[in-house]
């Protein structure tokens, strides 16, 4: 199981990470290594596009929670998720995280 991560710098101080694969204990470390540098003082928005993610477990969720904590630590910061499949959204709901994250519905641009 692999996870591919594409990074796209967007207008202003925003970055989009597009994920493709599985986010689990095996791949969450790589995801954390890509997210962590983005969570700094100058970045205002980090967008995680999960359209290609087939499965996520607690290790993946915990990695995303770090981004959520960053967004809450500074005014004007956004940590946005999008592209959740039905099964991935179900796991967010089981973890009771679906109402905590900023989740955009619909297909990402």
């Amino acid at each position, binding site marked *: *199981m692999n996870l591919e991560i594409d990074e796209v710098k967007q207008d202003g101080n925003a970055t989009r990470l597009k994920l493709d694969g*599985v986010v*689990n*204990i*095996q791949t969450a470390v790589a995801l954390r290594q890509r997210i962590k540098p983005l969570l700094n003082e100058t970045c205002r928005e980090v967008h995680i596009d999960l359209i290609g993610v087939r*499965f996520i*477990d*607690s*290790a993946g*969720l*915990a990695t995303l*929670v770090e981004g959520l904590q960053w967004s809450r630590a500074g005014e004007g910061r956004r940590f946005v998720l999008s592209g959740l499949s*039905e*099964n991935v959204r*179900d*796991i967010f709901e*089981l*973890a*009771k995280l679906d109402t905590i994250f900023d989740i955009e519905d619909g297909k990402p641009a």
Partner: protein
Amino acid sequence: MGSSENQISCTLNSSCDCVDVLCSMVEVMGQRASLSDKQTNRMVLAVDELFANIAQHGYHGLEGQVDMRAACENDILSFELRDYAKPIADASALCTSNPCLNSELSPGGLGLQLICAVMDKIEHEPLPDGNRWHLIKYLNEGEDDES
């Protein structure tokens, strides 16, 4: 790997590159039990989390043997994971019929929270040379798993 109509068994290494094999086995059992895609995904999640716990907390990230057996009999879907790590003397807090109904969600306990949300019963048996874990899902119980 062994397989018959109602059960599959195999021996895995707790190193993480075995997770995909484990998940494939669970998916096969989910299909044999006629589970929906969502229900099967939940079973994969529960077994993935238990396997990860054994790898992290039982074997502390080192390589270790995990025997896995999945069975679907008499409307019961069960997954047995047997490790050879240090036996846990008392895992009773994890293994009641509804172990997590009153627990608070905490980051460290998220994996267990997910297992509890998905399975009907978790059993643990300490052995002289390891632990045996059972994840049990009652099929056709009338509960709405799609909610």
